[in-house]
Structures are given as C-alpha cells and as structure tokens.
C-alpha cells in the first residue's frame, strides 16, 4: 500500500515536471522572438530613412500577428517613442490623442497601457510614402495569412475598395491556400472587380460579372453602376453593349434583393419595437386588464427595474457578463415588493373608485421619480451591455440584426408565455381569475381576496421591473424612463382589449409594426402621432379593444 502511494506520487511529480519543461521550451521560443522584435523595434528610430524598410521586412518575418498593430499605427502616423528613452532602449508606443496635446500611450508590442504624455515628451518614428506603401502591403500579407478566419475576411473586405496590381497578386496567392468558402467567395468578388476594371478583353470582363451575381456588397453595386452610367452628354461611358445590358440586369436583381432585405429589416425593427411595447404592457395587462386597477406608477416600476440593473452592475463590476442574469430576478423582486406596498398602502382603500386610483397612483409615480432623482441624481446612468448581447448577427452584406434587440424579442415572448402559464396553470392564476370575475363569490368560497389582490399586483409590478431590465439595454436609465412608456403601454392594453393577455400580444406587435412601416414615409414623430390618433379613433369604434372579453355584464 505504502509502495503504491509512493509510486503514484512519483508518477504525478514526474508528469508535472515534464509539463513544466515543455512549457518552458515554448516560452523560450516566445522569449527569443520577443527579444528580437524589441531589438528591431528599437532600431526603427535609430537608422536612416532608407534602412527602415529592411527592418520592417525582418519584423514582418519574425513578428507575424504581433507586429500588425504596430504597422497599422506607423502607417497612420501614430507610432512614437519617448524622448526619455533616447539613450536607452527605445520601445515604440502607439498614441491616441486626448486633445490639448495630451496623448494616451500604448506599448506597440504588448499593447499594454502606458499612461499619458504630452506632445513634447514624444518623438515620432519617421516614415515616407514608400514606407507607407510597404506597410500597407505588409499588413495585407499579414492579415491574409492570419490564422483567424475573421481577420482574413476583414482583410479581404478592406482590400475590396482599392485593389491594384500588387494586392491582386497577394490575393491570388492567398486564394490558393484559402479553405473557408465565404472568404473564397469574397476573394473571387475582389478578383472579378479587378478584372472588370483593368482587363481589355471583352470575354474576360463578361465572365468577371458572374462571381458578382449574388453579391450585395456596396462596392459591387458601385462598380455595376459605373458600367451603366452616362456621361454629361447622355452617352454611355461603357462602350461594350452586352456587358452593359448584363450589368443593368444584375443591378435590377440586386435592387430587388435589397428591397426584400429592406422589408425584412423593417419587419424586424417593427417586431423589436413591438416586443418592447409588449414587455412594458404585459405587467399592465395584469394590473389594469385583470384587476382593473389604473396604475399610473407602472412606468416608475419599470424605471425601478432599470435602476436595479444598474445597482446590480455596480455591485458586481467584475462579472458584468452575468450581472444582467442576476438583475432579472432582482428587478422582479424589487418592483414586485414596491408594487405590493403600493397595493396594500394605497390602492386597496380605493377599491371600486378607478378615477381616484388613477390620481393616487399618479401621485405615487411622482414620489418614486423624485426619490430616484434624489438618490441617483437626475442625470442618466449608463448600463453596460454584456459581451454576448452586443454586436450583431450579420446575415448578409445589407442585413444585420443586433443581438440585443433579438434577445429582447425572445425575452419578451418568454415573459409573456411564462405569465400565461401562471395565469392558466397555477392556483394563484385561478384565484386571480376568480376574484376578477366575481369578487363576492370568490370571497364566499373562501378565497382571501385581499391576499390575491396583493399577489396579483406584485406579479404585474414585478413584470414591469423585468421590462425595466430589458429597457436598460436599449436606452439610458434615467428618472423619466418610465414616463416615456406609460401612455404607450396603456394604448397597447386598451387596443388589444382589457383583460385579454393575447390581445396585449397582438396589440403590442401590431402597433410596433405599424409604427415602423409608417416611419420611412412620415418620420418617427409623425408616425407616433398617427398611431395615437388611429387608436383614439379605433376605441370610438370598438370601445372594448381588438379582443373584447366575453361577458354578460351590460354596463361596467
């Protein structure tokens, strides 16, 4: 037994040593490369202008990806060294102007921040047009041979606009090694554009149109437009008729596709706005629709949810990525508790007096706004978006969908269906429906109507808080955040039909869509006004909304 233990220990130890050795050897290689780069970079500012290019070549060979930022900075004229280092080793720094001749410094090799300096403390690393030309090509070479496909794709995209003889050679070479289909396609487009511009042979040029067929890139559209353009005298600039006819056909196709994708984009924007409206109105459809309480403080409960997100983020600064996931239940609890307090403290004394309830809750909304203003200052607060929510899903060159809007759309639907489940499948939902249909009867069969009221109101308010979390990702968080949505959310509930959750869904989505489809023609504000006027007229025609609740009450 003892032997066995020793043996295992020995085995583990030796393994550990081996791995350490292996890491060491890699580190040694890295170290070697680093010292070489640092040495070469030091030389950049010491040698004469003529000698700079060979040094850069060497840097390119040894450095690969590491030197790319340095090259880009040098090309843009942002590469300096500190005068203080004049007689010691000169580490180049990338500078970023902060105004007033103050500069933010970044190490050109490690990219670590190195504090600030004034212009007087810095000396620029010289270059000329020839060197800049070399740098451009070197950057293209480095990025095209990068191991990261995204970098390669970006490199090809950058080259699209300005292809000349030198870059086309690079591109042709890189194309042979490229495996990724998307990038290959892009490269073909780039090569075709070049052929179209430079080739003399009519057949070759016509053939070059083919890879452009399905492309939606703006640069392709420009090139095709040039082919069908007319000069000042009204004559076609392009002499080749077949080429021109083909190009105009392709342009028509592209335009059709653009229209289609434009439509999809508007549709998405409409659904996105609709999802925001749905989120802010869902809570209201419980408190107003089911309970019949006019809660003018609903907007402020949304605002509280947004501020909860902000506070949660302040409390866990190192976990911004997850803070929003913590914020959702936190906001639900905070707004829900405030909602229960409002219900127990004020609303229950005003039962059956809807107009008074409206006024009292409006008073509460003023108090909440001012409270937040006093606690957090009247200025807007910025809530950071987690990494996984920023950026956009690029479907093609003209259509991209931002992740935050996509997630909010999904989130709104999730919240909606969760609420449906609560209302339909849980005892609480059953009680709520019983009390809302006939309070006295519900009491008679032993339902504690007071408790149900408080829970229902808490539920609706909690959902308002959750809506606030979503809104904090779209707009700035300020004390007036809720006010902007209160009228809209009432419109959605009234339009959809009071007391009908499905009506809220359809109402929110259709108002969002109508708004966004009117917007291009009328502008945002006028579209908003028109929608409001439309709802005002609609309510005259159908006072109970799109989906009226069935009932036998003649007057309510």
């Amino acid at each position: 037994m003892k032997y066995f233990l020793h043996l295992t220990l020995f085995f583990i130890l030796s393994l550990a040593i081996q791995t350490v050795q292996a890491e060491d050897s890699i580190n040694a290689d890295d170290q070697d490369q680093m010292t070489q780069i640092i040495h070469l970079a030091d030389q950049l500012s010491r040698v004469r202008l003529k000698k700079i290019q060979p040094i850069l070549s060497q840097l390119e060979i040894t450095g690969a990806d590491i030197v790319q930022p340095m090259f880009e900075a040098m090309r843009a004229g942002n590469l300096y060294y500190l005068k203080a280092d004049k007689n010691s080793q000169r580490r180049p720094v990338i500078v970023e102007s902060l105004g007033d001749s103050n500069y933010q410094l970044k190490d050109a090799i490690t990219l670590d921040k190195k504090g600030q300096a004034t212009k007087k403390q810095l000396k620029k690393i010289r270059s000329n047009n020839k060197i800049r030309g070399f740098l451009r090509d070197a950057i293209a070479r480095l990025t095209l041979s990068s191991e990261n496909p995204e970098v390669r794709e970006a490199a090809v995209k950058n080259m699209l606009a300005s292809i000349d003889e030198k870059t086309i050679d690079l591109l042709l070479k890189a194309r042979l090694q490229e495996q990724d289909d998307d990038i290959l396609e892009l490269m073909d487009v780039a090569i075709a554009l070049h052929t179209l511009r430079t080739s003399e042979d009519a057949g070759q040029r016509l053939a070059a149109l083919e890879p452009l067929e399905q492309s939606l890139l703006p640069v392709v559209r420009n090139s095709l437009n040039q082919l069908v353009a007319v000069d000042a005298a009204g004559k076609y600039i392009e002499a080749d008729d077949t080429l021109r006819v083909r190009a105009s056909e392709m342009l028509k196709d592209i335009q059709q596709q653009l229209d289609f994708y434009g439509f999809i984009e508007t549709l998405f924007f409409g659904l996105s706005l609709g999802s925001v409206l749905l989120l802010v109105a869902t809570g209201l459809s419980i408190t107003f629709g089911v309970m019949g309480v006019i809660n003018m403080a609903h907007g402020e409960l949304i605002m509280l949810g947004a501020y909860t997100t902000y506070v949660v983020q302040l409390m866990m600064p190192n976990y911004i990525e997850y803070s929003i996931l913590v914020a959702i239940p936190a906001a639900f609890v905070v707004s829900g508790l405030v909602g229960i307090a409002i219900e127990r403290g004020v609303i229950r004394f005003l039962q059956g007096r809807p107009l008074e309830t409206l006024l009292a809750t409006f008073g509460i909304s003023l108090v909440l706004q001012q409270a937040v203003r006093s606690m957090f200052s009247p200025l807007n607060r910025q809530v950071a978006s987690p990494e996984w929510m920023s950026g956009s899903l690029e479907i093609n060159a003209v259509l991209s969908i931002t992740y935050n809007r996509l997630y909010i759309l999904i989130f709104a639907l999730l919240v909606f269906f969760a609420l449906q489940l609560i209302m339909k499948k849980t005892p609480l939902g059953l009680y709520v429906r019983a009390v809302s249909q006939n309070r006295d009867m519900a009491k008679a069969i032993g339902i504690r109507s007071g408790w149900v009221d408080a829970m229902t109101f808490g539920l609706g308010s909690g959902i308002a808080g959750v809506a606030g979390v979503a809104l904090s990702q779209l707009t700035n968080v300020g004390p007036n955040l809720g006010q902007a949505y209160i009228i809209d959310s009432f419109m959605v509930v009234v339009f959809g039909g009071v007391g009908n959750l499905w009506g809220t869904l359809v109402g929110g989505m259709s108002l969002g869509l109508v708004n966004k489809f009117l917007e291009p023609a009328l502008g945002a504000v006028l579209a908003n006004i028109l929608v409001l006027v439309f709802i005002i007229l609609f309510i005259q025609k159908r006072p109970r909304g799109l989906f009226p609740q069935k009932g036998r009450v003649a007057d309510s």
Partner: protein
Amino acid sequence: MSSTSIPAGQISTLHAIRNKAPLFLAILFGATLYASVCNLYVPQGSVFYVSTYTITLLGKYLCYALLALSVDVIWGYCGILSLGHGAFFALGGYGMGMYLMRQIGDRGVYGNPELPDFMVFLNWPELPWYWAAFDQFWFSALMILFVPGSLAFVFGWLAFRSRVTGVYLAIMTQALTYALMLAFFRNEMGFGGNNGLTDFKDILGYNLQADNTRVVLFLLTALALALAYVASELIMNSKFGRVIIGIRDAEDRLRFLGYRTDLYKVALFVYSALLAGIAGALYVPQVGIINPGEFSPLNSIEIVIWVAIGGRGTLYGAVIGALIVNYAKTKFTAILPEVWLFALGALFVAVTIFLPNGLVGLFKRRSQGKLS
C-alpha cells in the same frame, strides 16, 4: 356607477353654491381691486405697495383658477375625467401667442416685417396660410374659441356617442394631449417647435411690459373668472344642469328615461373646452411665452389635482384648490425644489384617500358637525 343612488349630500351641495356665489364674487373683486390700486397708486416704498411681479403672478393664478373651473364643470358635475384639458388651454394660448407674434412686426431679432423670428431662422420662404389672418385681433379671438371648441366637439362627439366613459375616456384624453404635444414639438408644424412662441411686445397697441397693461390684463382675467363662475352656476342650476348631474350619478337611468345623454355631454365638454381656451389666451400675454410643454400630460393631471384638492362639484372649491396648490408650488420650488414633487405626490395620495371631497368638504363636514 349605475347602481349607486344619488347621495343625499349632493342635492344640498347645489343649494350651497347658490349661497356662496355673491360671497365668492365679493372676495374676488375686493382682492383684485385692492391689488390693482395698490400697484398703480401707492408709491413703491410703501408697505401697501403690490409689485408688478405679484400682479402678474396673481393673474397667472387666476388663469389657473379658470382652468380648474373648466375641469370642475365636467368632472365634478358630470363625472367626465379629462386628463387632457391642458390641450385646450394650450390651444387657446397658441391662438393668442400667434396674434402677439404678428404684433411684433419688424421689431424681432431678424427685423423681418412679415415672418416671426423662428420662421426666418428656419428659412421659411413665406408665412403659412394658417398664420395669415392672425394679425387681426377679432380673428384671433374667434380662433381662441373656435379651435379648442371644435376639437372638443369632434372628440366628444366621437367618444360620447360610442359611450366611451370613465377610465377609458381619461386615457384617451391623455393620448390626445400627448399626440398634440409631439406634433407641436415638430418644427415643420410652424408653431415655433421646441421653443414655442415668445418675445412678445404689445397687445392691441399697448406695451405688454407696462404696469398699466399688466393690471388691465389681471383685471380682465378676474372678470373672465367671475363671468365663467356665474355662467357655470347658472348652467348647473338650470334644467340642463340637473340632467348633467343626473348623468354623473346614473347615466343609464337617464338614457332609459329618454334623454340623449351623449348630446348633453358633448355640449358640456365644448363649454368646458371654451373656458380652458380662454384661460390659455389670458395666460400667454401675462406669462410671455407658450411652448409645447403646456401640452404635456403631466400638466393636465395637475389641473385635476387642483380640483380634487379644492373639492369637486362646488366650483369655488376648484378655484380655491388652484390658488392654494399654485401658491404652494411657487413657494416650494423657490425654497426646496426637490421637495415639491414629493409634496405634490403625497398630496395626490392623501387627498384621494382622506379627503374625497377636498378641502371644501373638510370644512363643510366641520360646519355640519357643529350644527348637528
């Protein structure tokens, strides 16, 4: 609403108004005359001197009182809660503002004899057609009545015929004023956009900055309030008024008895909008500016609060509420600006829960308690 029978107290309220009217008018005229005389004929150093600033402030309060009266007429007597009455007020104000704007002539910053400053600034080539006749006072006065009145007529006609009542109506009126606010914020509308109309010089040839003009405007406002008070009281004591109160307490019953309740409501709504429009028109020359902020839903809700605090369904309660709340607002916002919204919010809650009949109701209960 339909099941509640008429509370006995409501009937006695009606008699109470009749008794209060002379007293109300006497106090109003006494106070305004005193303030005016003390402003014009008492030397500045005297303790009795009333500054022009105070006169203007009082004039503003009286405009608010008239506005509160207009809300009380429909809410207190007919049960129609409008959360958009600020819209009629602002429309009346814009009518007057447009007239005053045209009176500036070439004394504006850009010196254009025809176009108001903001149009020159926005490169408008010529005056829009709807501005054309506003250099005539009679036309402007007509529009001050016509525009809010016709908006109220159209809105009321549509709403009351479809029997949109209670909370729905409240939210619709709020949407109405919100939509108008968005519209007036647009520069393209030709009403000065965000900045509204301001920099007025004179009215009917009299300098707006002069003490005399200010006092006359103040007296006119008081006169308008008195006339509106008397007219409203006459209306409420007439047969028409009885029907209106009947609608408040049991609309269905009246409908079953054969009354066209919707027509009564439309008529009363238009009357109320006219009062609000007049209040707006008197407000603008005294305050010197009108901008789209007046349309904001918050303003409209504040009016309702004045009425609720004073006590609705009494007319004088609305006036008292408007004066007290606005006086408090002036004081609070000067001394403790952060506290004002807390105080206003707390007032909303406290009044609705503890004082359903407002301050007037509080005193009435006391005096009744003493009697019994």
